[in-house]
């Protein structure tokens, strides 16, 4: 956990109330602490003071002029008065001046009822003497999602400052002078930005609003639920607001949640993904002719239960496999594995954590004995150095990205990026532009890049002395191992130079608090666990590992991947997670469950699909997971699913996978249920229902429960809380919501064991640069990656997000485009041994030479070009990179 550096305390008096605050506190903040609310427009705790609105003026003894409390810092003995008559006069005057040019179109303004200008006017003004002409801005189009109403703008610049200071997008700017200043995108173009919605949220009036909910409501008509976003592992707290049974808008509260009131495009504009008109409303059963028929819950459940029972009787429990999405709540994940293990009787249970996150958690577990980060978001903010490895953080974990931006901007942290994107500016934020050292690493090369940095550390004799004396075997082994790697090899493999690696290593070594974050580029790669282990080695060698504020974090792409592993929804883990063959846990669970816990090792996702194809896996229960669209055709998922005797899918939408099912259960989305999610840094947070389940859909856990009853092995839960209670009994860390009661400290014993013995097992493999086939002349490395605007395929159904990005466009470096002879907006034909696909092209400066990037959310056609490699250690399916030749389509 972060420690705040201790500051000198000073005493100030505000409206007669004395308070001790740290030196440097703003007067307005000190005032708030004694309960004096100084009215303000431009002040915002997240932003540097700009003192432009002049609303917060106060009188400070011994200073002749009134001072802006939002920019004045306290001094010892300061006497502040905020409610004397001439301060009130000054406030009234500011309001009178602002109202002069304000259209007062409150009746049609979305901010009406929660507007600072309204509220302060109500409190302070009697009227306005302004009888002149008001300024009028002609209507301008900013974006299909964000609307500006510049006549309402009070020029507080909060939107612009937020976009610059917090988002680092710099997409907004004031244009024009004086009263005719308006907020606009560059050169009046349509807005292109991160679409975080922050400008809308931070505007104190209704000058920037969301077009998704424009004119749809009055604030007091809305019912609110505080919940957690279901679109990525950051786990943002958000308020979902509905009018009757319609989702109207999502917003967030400053200071609340791990996101501290910030959101990303998916969180702010994506909520309709949950309630698209295509939602499955009724259970379905496949007919003889292949079509689906709507049936009652009884029929569907009975059909599934019968099938499972028959197959189990005929072929044994291990002929059935279960796969669930890590988007579900902990309760549902737990109930699912309990259903598979306890009711069906198999360890064939897996989840989307298999796509890569498992690699990270296993490495953490192995080296430090805990399956969670030893650091938190707060440590990222307080770090001296943050190292990003294959994260695409702004796209994949935007809020974790904001913590880094905050650390850099507010605390002067240094950033080292081992990332594919290159530093290039645009109005969509790009974390690499903030890096002190940027090392361009193409997908598939992160392992080699990490070795380069470790070599840099070793070569400069920066291995921490304590480590080399206390863990001399470990240190000498690693030192010897990296010495065997030549710079030439590294240069050839990742294109990094000695100088780059030395500089990065030196910066890491010199810092005190170092946080390393590994993302999908690492986790989804073959040998991903080894790369994360090497990152832990790096921190150990540099002497930072285990120190307060230092550690390695692995980033979850989906909202509950951490939870999925902790709930035991990966083949090799029981809840805890503890190893599936751990007999103590088996015995404990058997007691709690009142059922046997299977001891035969289970099959992972890829193995289950293989077995299905081979005919030994007869039935699968797939919940919210869509392997057909998450793996390339090369993985032969289609053949596997076709070979099943029984496929039961539980889904929000009729996905390609669900279309192959024999029985389909309509599930409820995250906004229709209660439960908990565990975010990537290990915070357990409450998910709360904001809508009643759509149609006949039911929360997943209710379906499992019903099915278990029909299978004569009832898991009887009356409400979701009962499951949580059971989880608590089984996993002590779930004793409390929120942060685990104690920080996640490294288990010293396990670490010592790793340094003594554990590292040896695979050190050779980990410290070898894998052979890479030389790239053929002129070929592009085609990468499928996460876009900032979408979460899996799920949000492509969001009416908000689809307005920003509704299809995939291939991003290529302008120089490559020139070489190929293709222009922005034209099309390219991509081909390799697997096939040929034609895609539209966009020239993007941040894409490095030789790379073509495509948003994975729209990979329907492109998947055909990829081949699957299965990671040996953890059976992670790896396939997001391939090589293609690109030719112009004339």
């Amino acid at each position, binding site marked *: 956990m972060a420690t705040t550096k201790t500051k000198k305390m000073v005493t100030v008096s505000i409206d007669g109330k004395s308070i001790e605050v740290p030196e440097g506190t703003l007067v307005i903040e000190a005032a708030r602490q004694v309960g004096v609310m100084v009215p303000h427009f431009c002040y915002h705790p997240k932003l540097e003071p700009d003192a432009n609105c002049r609303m917060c003026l106060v009188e400070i003894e011994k200073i002749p*002029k009134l001072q802006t409390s939002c920019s004045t810092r306290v001094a010892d003995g300061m006497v502040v008065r905020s409610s004397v008559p001439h301060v009130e006069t000054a406030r009234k005057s500011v309001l009178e001046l602002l109202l002069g040019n304000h259209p007062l179109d409150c009746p049609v303004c979305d901010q009406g009822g929660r507007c600072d200008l309204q509220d302060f006017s109500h409190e302070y003004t009697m009227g306005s003497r*302004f009888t002149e002409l008001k300024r009028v801005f002609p209507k301008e189009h900013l974006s299909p999602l964000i609307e500006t109403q510049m006549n309402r703008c009070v020029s507080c610049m909060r939107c612009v400052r937020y976009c610059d200071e917090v988002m680092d997008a710099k997409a907004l700017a004031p244009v024009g002078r004086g009263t005719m200043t308006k907020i606009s995108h560059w050169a009046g173009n349509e807005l292109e930005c991160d679409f975080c919605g922050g400008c809308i949220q931070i505007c104190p009036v209704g000058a920037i609003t969301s077009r998704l909910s424009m004119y749809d409501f009055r604030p007091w008509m809305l019912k609110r639920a505080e919940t957690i976003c279901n679109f990525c592992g950051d786990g943002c707290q958000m308020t979902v607001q509905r009018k009757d049974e319609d989702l109207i808008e999502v917003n967030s509260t400053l200071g609340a949640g791990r996101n501290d009131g910030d959101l990303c495009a998916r969180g702010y504009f994506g909520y309709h993904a949950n309630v698209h008109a295509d939602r499955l409303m009724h259970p379905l059963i496949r007919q003889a002719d292949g079509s689906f028929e709507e049936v009652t819950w009884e029929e569907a459940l009975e059909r599934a239960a019968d099938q499972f029972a028959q197959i189990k009787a005929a072929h044994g429990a291990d002929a059935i496999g279960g796969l669930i999405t890590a988007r579900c709540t902990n309760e549902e994940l737990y109930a699912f594995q309990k259903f598979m293990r306890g009711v069906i009787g198999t360890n064939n249970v897996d989840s989307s954590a298999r796509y890569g996150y498992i690699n990270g958690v296993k490495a953490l577990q192995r080296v430090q004995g805990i399956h969670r980060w030893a650091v938190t978001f707060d440590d990222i903010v307080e770090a001296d150095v943050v190292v990003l490895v294959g994260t695409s953080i702004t796209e994949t974990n935007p809020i974790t990205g904001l913590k880094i931006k905050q650390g850099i901007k507010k605390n002067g942290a240094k950033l080292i990026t081992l990332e594919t994107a290159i530093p290039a500016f645009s109005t969509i934020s790009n974390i690499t532009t903030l890096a002190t050292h940027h090392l361009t690493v193409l997908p598939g090369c992160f392992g080699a890049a990490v070795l380069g940095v470790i070599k840099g550390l070793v070569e400069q004799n920066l291995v921490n002395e304590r480590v080399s004396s206390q863990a001399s075997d470990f240190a000498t082994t690693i030192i010897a191992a990296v010495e065997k790697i030549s710079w030439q090899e590294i240069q050839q493999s990742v294109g990094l130079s000695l100088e780059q690696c030395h500089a990065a290593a030196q910066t890491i070594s010199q810092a005190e608090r170092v946080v390393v974050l590994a993302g999908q580029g690492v986790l989804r790669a073959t040998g991903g666990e080894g790369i994360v282990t090497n990152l832990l080695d790096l921190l150990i060698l540099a002497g930072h590992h285990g120190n307060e504020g230092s550690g390695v974090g692995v980033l979850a792409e989906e909202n509950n991947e951490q939870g999925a592993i902790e709930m035991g929804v990966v083949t090799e883990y029981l809840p805890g997670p503890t190893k599936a063959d751990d007999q103590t846990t088996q015995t404990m669970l058997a007691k709690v469950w009142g059922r046997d816990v299977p001891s035969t090792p289970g099959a992972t996702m890829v193995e289950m699909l293989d077995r299905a194809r081979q005919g030994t896996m007869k039935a699968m229960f797939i919940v919210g997971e869509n392997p057909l669209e998450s793996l390339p055709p090369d993985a032969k998922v289609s053949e596997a699913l076709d070979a099943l005797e029984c496929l039961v899918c539980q889904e929000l939408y009729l996905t390609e996978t669900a279309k192959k099912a024999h029985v389909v259960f309509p599930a409820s989305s995250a906004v229709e249920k209660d439960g908990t999610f565990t975010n990537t840094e290990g915070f357990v947070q409450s998910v709360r229902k904001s809508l009643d389940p759509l149609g006949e859909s039911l929360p997943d856990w209710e379906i499992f429960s019903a099915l278990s009853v029909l299978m004569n092995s009832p898991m009887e839960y009356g409400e979701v809380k009962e499951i949580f209670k059971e989880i608590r009994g089984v996993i002590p860390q779930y004793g409390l919501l929120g942060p685990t009661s104690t920080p996640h400290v490294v288990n010293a014993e396990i670490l010592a064991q790793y340094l003594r013995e554990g590292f040896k097992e695979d050190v050779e493999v980990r410290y070898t640069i894998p052979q890479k086939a030389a790239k053929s002349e002129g070929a592009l490395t085609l990468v499928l990656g996460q876009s900032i605007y979408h979460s899996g395929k799920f949000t492509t159904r969001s009416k908000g997000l689809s307005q920003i990005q509704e299809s995939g466009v291939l991003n290529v470096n302008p120089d490559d485009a020139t070489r190929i002879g293709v222009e922005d907006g034209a099309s390219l034909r991509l081909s390799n041994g697997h096939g040929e696909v034609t895609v539209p092209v966009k020239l993007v400066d941040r894409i490095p030479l030789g790379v073509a990037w495509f948003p994975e959310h729209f990979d329907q056609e492109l998947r055909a070009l990829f081949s699957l490699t299965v990671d040996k250690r953890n059976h992670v399916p790896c396939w997001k990179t391939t090589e293609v030749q690109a030719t112009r389509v004339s």
Partner: protein
Amino acid sequence: MKPFEKILTKNMSNPQYTGSLQDYEATGGYQALKKVLAGVPQNDIIEMVKKSGLRGRGGAGFPTGVKWSFLPKDYQGPKYLCCNADESEPGTFKDRQLMERDPHQMLEGMAITCYTIGAEIGYIYIRGEFRFGAKVLERAIEEAKQAGHLGVNVHGSGVTINLYVHAGAGAYICGEETALLESLEGKRGKPRVKPPFPATHGLYQKPTVVNNVETLANIPHIVSRGPEWFAAIGAPPKSTGTRVFCLSGHVKNPGNYELPVNATFRDLIEELGGGMRSDKPMKAFIPGGASAPFLTPKHIDVAMDFESVAMAGSMSGSGGVTVMEEGTSMVWAALRLMEFFYHESCGKCTPCREGSSWIVQILQRIQNKQGRQGDLDTLSEICKNIGGRTVCAFGDAEIAPVQSTLQYWRHEYEALIQEAEALRATRKEKEIPVLSL
């Protein structure tokens, strides 16, 4: 008027003087720079400038040596000098002439200042419209570089001094020192909240000195001839040296005139300016640029130094004296200035942004004979609510013309309003209802 020696305009007063490096050197140019680089400790120069009593000529009159001494002493890392050549104050045009006619004088001043404060880089932020001046300066910098007065290792001292010209883009507010810095950084030219001051957090948040062209042009002379010489000119100890006053308006001979700082307005207007242009007597004058409150003929014998003008209720500001003859409508004059301020308000602070637009509209109405009872009180109120409540001094500046014309010529406003009332009575025009909330 006592005889005196011109300092800043001495060279250019010679019709043969071209402002070239050769000409400048012939008058002893760059000797002061050589002298200090030969080993005068930086602190001694600061003390010298303090002792000279030199005060900023950009408007605020801040003691220059004191300003320099605010830079952190042992600061590691870059520091900057910025020469404020944005001269955009209506009625002020001295910097332009100083730059165009004797560029090296200012460049030498900058070089000495750079050395003194430990800056390797000096920027000249020049008003965008001064295309010619910018060219002259660029050429002069090149000449000075060739001659070794600028560049790396100047005169073998190991000191690096590089000067660059940066043109503004047409905003008056960029003359305000922190807006200037923002603009120089490539941002929108908006004043910063102070503190922190440029001395500690200036250009790129580094310690920075911002000085006016004329201020800097004085430096070589102070170094060459000693602070005592300079301090003896004018009204020591507070206001010393000479100033280039810009005379404009209804006078016979408008132009730039260098005078000891404590010469009187009569010296400037009558002796040098040749008095009024016609037989109409003087009605009013602005003593120190558009931001200074108007004065009346009874102030003609006031001395032009900072203190004396302040005592008279105005300020000597940028040294721009604009004279108006009898018959000038003071409401019109105030409106004209207010239109300028409205156009130039950067829009950062509510009172200045909204207040200027409101005042302009009221003045326009009054001028167009649509004034109303109560307008004058409203005007005064708005002014009061702007003054002292804004981020930069522009707020105080923009109310000066309105407040001072209301003070001395309120009857002119009242007459126009009465006319409007009378017109309304005949037209039975409806009052626009006053908005109430």
